[in-house]
């Protein structure tokens, strides 16, 4: 049953991501990415990470994707007006390099996974409740990782000011 749910969610994620990359209409790309993020949230629930699943929906599918939607509507480009085809010589060179790199990556991943063998997740209820507990996450976030947490607030402030400065219309 859980195996079946995994394959459904993983399939939706992969197909939606392929759609994002291959769609010529930016609006469709953004919508398909939201579908992909929804399926990923389901996978997080399967991994006993309900907090991350909810954050994924609220922050990613909610806030970040709305930002993308705003920009797509603002620029109002229904279709890409320019031909998306690269020059044939460049495309052939890119394809050769890309095929070489992806075959190397596949060999690496296959070798690594064959070295470790199948690793199943622990089924101890104590361990599961420790991993999925929001209280544990909050505790670790504000004690062990408090410095990173504070630095994040600086990052957000800087990027907020930066976005306003960059996008401002010059008079």
């Amino acid at each position, binding site marked *: 049953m859980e*195996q079946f749910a995994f394959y459904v969610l*993983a399939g939706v994620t*992969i197909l939606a991501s392929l759609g994002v990359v291959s769609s010529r209409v930016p609006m469709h790309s953004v919508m398909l*990415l939201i579908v992909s993020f929804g399926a*990923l949230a389901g996978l997080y629930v399967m991994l006993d*990470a309900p907090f991350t699943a909810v954050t994924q929906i609220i922050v*990613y599918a909610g806030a970040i994707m709305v930002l993308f939607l705003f920009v797509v509507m603002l620029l109002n480009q229904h279709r890409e007006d320019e031909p998306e085809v690269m020059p044939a010589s460049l495309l052939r060179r890119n394809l050769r390099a890309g095929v070489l790199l992806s075959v190397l990556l596949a060999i690496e*991943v296959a070798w690594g996974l064959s070295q470790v063998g199948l690793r199943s997740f622990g089924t101890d209820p104590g361990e599961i409740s*420790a991993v999925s507990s929001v209280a544990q996450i909050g505790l670790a976030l504000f004690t062990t990782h408090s410095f990173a947490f504070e630095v994040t607030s600086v*990052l957000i402030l800087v990027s907020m000011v930066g976005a306003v400065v960059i996008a401002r219309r010059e008079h």
Partner: protein
Amino acid sequence: MPTLNHFLILSGMLFAIGTAGVFLRRNLITILLSIEIMLNAVNITFVAVGRYRGTVDGQIITFFVMTVAAAEAAVGLALVIALFRHRETLSPDAFTSLKW
């Protein structure tokens, strides 16, 4: 019950799709969306390995990655808007000069 390997393979496939999008597409918005796919592929690795090791650290790093992704999207989209105002196009090939 799916194993850790299932999630690692899924993450690798998602990352490959995102990388292909960055290299093959000629549209700034789609390139930014492909970067989001790559970030999510990494997130799923963090959460799966954290679950395997029985700690919450993977979820905490995922939390930080989401924050950085939000900051990156804000600045990246501001750049896209500023560039579009100059050249009326979203093709990265139109922006080859650092200064104009």
